[in-house]
């Protein structure tokens, strides 16, 4: 993961509910505290205005990337002549296509992120959950293949080149110490690696529960008579055993760990995680 932190574009990806938003926000915050101009990107968050850009601090901005705005911006850039771009964008068929054409939505969102990398030192992207996140990256490859020549083809190819360049881009797979997320993230890691062979992803285990000493409880969870916990202490003991048991699924994977932070508001959690990540980031001599 340390190596990953040097890269300009960082995709934070994983199963739903693993804490991608907190982790990506914490990373962005940690970068900005090192005085790196950082853009933290999310896609189409309905609680924020479409395309809304917030200045969180002098070094940290948050963008809510929105596909239809990104599409208009892209077409404007490509066509160059404003009246033609307007005519094109107003045409009902084009409006329809920009909304409904499969994959285009994903392509323009990533295109916007790709473009923004020129304006910042770091871009940290809070990707959609596994399936949709992968589809976003695949859409770039599909468009590079589907269009035979023309500017969109060239841009999709250039985006692909950036995304698979380990000097520029990294993927961080976030998981929880639970069985399904661990399994899915292993598969996700393999898929990402096969898509970008030169640029293997890094793994981050989020919300690792405190490990307790082995008590009298059976070490093999499948031998417990019931999945229902008796009380909180019983739950804590079993969870500690279960996480250890689950992590066998990540044997052979090199991963970093974020601890289970005391629950609080989202910003408190992010702050705690950011402080946890800060030493690793500070160590990198990032400004060079």
């Amino acid at each position, binding site marked *: 993961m340390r190596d990953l932190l040097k890269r300009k574009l960082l995709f934070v990806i994983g*199963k*739903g*509910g693993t804490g991608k938003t907190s982790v990506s926000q914490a990373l962005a915050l940690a970068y900005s505290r090192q005085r790196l101009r950082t853009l933290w990107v999310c896609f189409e968050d309905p609680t924020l205005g479409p395309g809304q850009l917030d200045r969180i601090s002098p070094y940290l901005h948050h963008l809510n990337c929105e596909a239809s705005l990104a599409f208009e911006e892209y*077409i404007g850039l490509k*066509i160059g002549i404003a009246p033609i771009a307007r*005519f*094109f964008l107003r*045409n009902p*068929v*084009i409006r*329809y*296509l920009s*909304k*409904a054409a*499969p*994959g285009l939505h*994903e392509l323009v969102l990533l295109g916007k992120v790709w473009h923004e990398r020129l304006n910042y030192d770091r871009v940290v992207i809070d990707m959609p*959950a596994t399936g*949709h996140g992968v*589809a976003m990256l*695949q*859409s770039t490859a*599909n468009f590079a293949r*589907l*269009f*035979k*020549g*023309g*500017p*969109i*083809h060239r841009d999709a190819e250039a985006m692909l080149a950036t995304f698979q360049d380990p000097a520029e881009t990294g993927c961080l797979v976030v998981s929880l110490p639970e*069985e*399904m*997320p661990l399994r899915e993230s292993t598969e996700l890691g393999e898929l990402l690696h096969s898509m970008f062979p030169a640029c293997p992803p890094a793994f981050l285990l989020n919300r690792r529960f*405190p*490990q*307790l000493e082995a*008590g009298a409880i059976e070490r093999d*969870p499948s031998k*417990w008579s*019931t*999945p*229902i*916990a*008796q*009380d*909180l*202490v*019983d*739950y*804590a*003991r*079993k*969870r*500690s055993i*279960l996480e250890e048991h689950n992590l066998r699924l990540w044997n052979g994977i090199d991963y970093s760990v974020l601890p*289970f932070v*005391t*629950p609080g508001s*989202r910003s408190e959690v992010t702050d705690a995680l950011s402080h946890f990540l800060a030493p690793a980031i500070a160590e990198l001599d990032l400004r060079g």
Partner: protein
Amino acid sequence: MTQIAPSTIDEILSSRRIIITCGTGGVGKTTLSAALAVRAAQSGRKAVVITIDPAKRLATSLGLSTLGDAPTDLTHLLGAVPGTLAAIMPDTRETFETFIRSISPTPTVAERVIKNPIYEIFAKEFSGANEYMALQRLLALDRTGQFDCIILDTPPSRDTLAFLDAPELLSQFFEERFIKWFILPANQVMAVGVRKALGVLENLTGAGFVTHLFDFAQSLFETRLRFAADLKAVTALLESSASSFVLVTGTSPESAREIGDFARSVAEHKFRFDGVIINRTLGLLDAGTPSTPGENAALRLLVALQTREKEAIGILKGALGKAPYFMAPELARDVHSIHDLIQVAQSV
């Protein structure tokens, strides 16, 4: 509404023929859907769960080994129950192609759609296709008349509304008005505008894409009548009082907005919303007695979680309005057997 909405899990299970469970990934929706089907069978219903991509262990504990559209009877696993239990684990990869074939007037039309390069992206990435396929399967299963309680576990999606919006999203592609712009422009002015815009598009995308697009639109045009009939049947089923939606959420305060949005969207679609299952709650557990400093620290963490949950549930209740909510416990481990599933079914 003349009918009184059900207010307990058992009332929901006994009054609806179709229960659709929605929720984002990671909330334990699949396990709960199976548990609901178990509970329905225990109360005398002919229950079936359509479970999409279950954890391997859950599938194994249900004795499900093959993907397909045929229900596997699981009643024998429950011992003596008044009802029946079955499960289906559909193969989500094949379905879209099967669907295109089913709505195509001739095999040639189906081939033209499927072989088009645009279809490849369409089938793989179009969010809405998987959801619509699940509805298709639901409709077909309901028509067999074999079951009186069908639980549909919806495919994982990035937000809970995706399922509700899927039919409309998909129908955009079959919208006659749109396809006509491509193949028979309604009037000359429009035709000129469209031609110019497509010229610009061709410059951007390179040769070939627009041709493929025309061909894709043309072949879809031939399937539109059957698609429309199909959509109508699916919509009618969802709108009927036999069907309802249940939302599964986590225990964080962020779920409040999700609940509000979901309830609103269900109402806009003229569907029924039967309530929320707040899953993985620690709120049902007492503290217990820690015996080491480590356990004590872990307990403090869990008590803090419980307190936060309690506050969150207060907020969630506000978002619910009149709809009921139910609590399902956080489990110490996954479900390993039908015995485990029965316990989960009873714990809700």
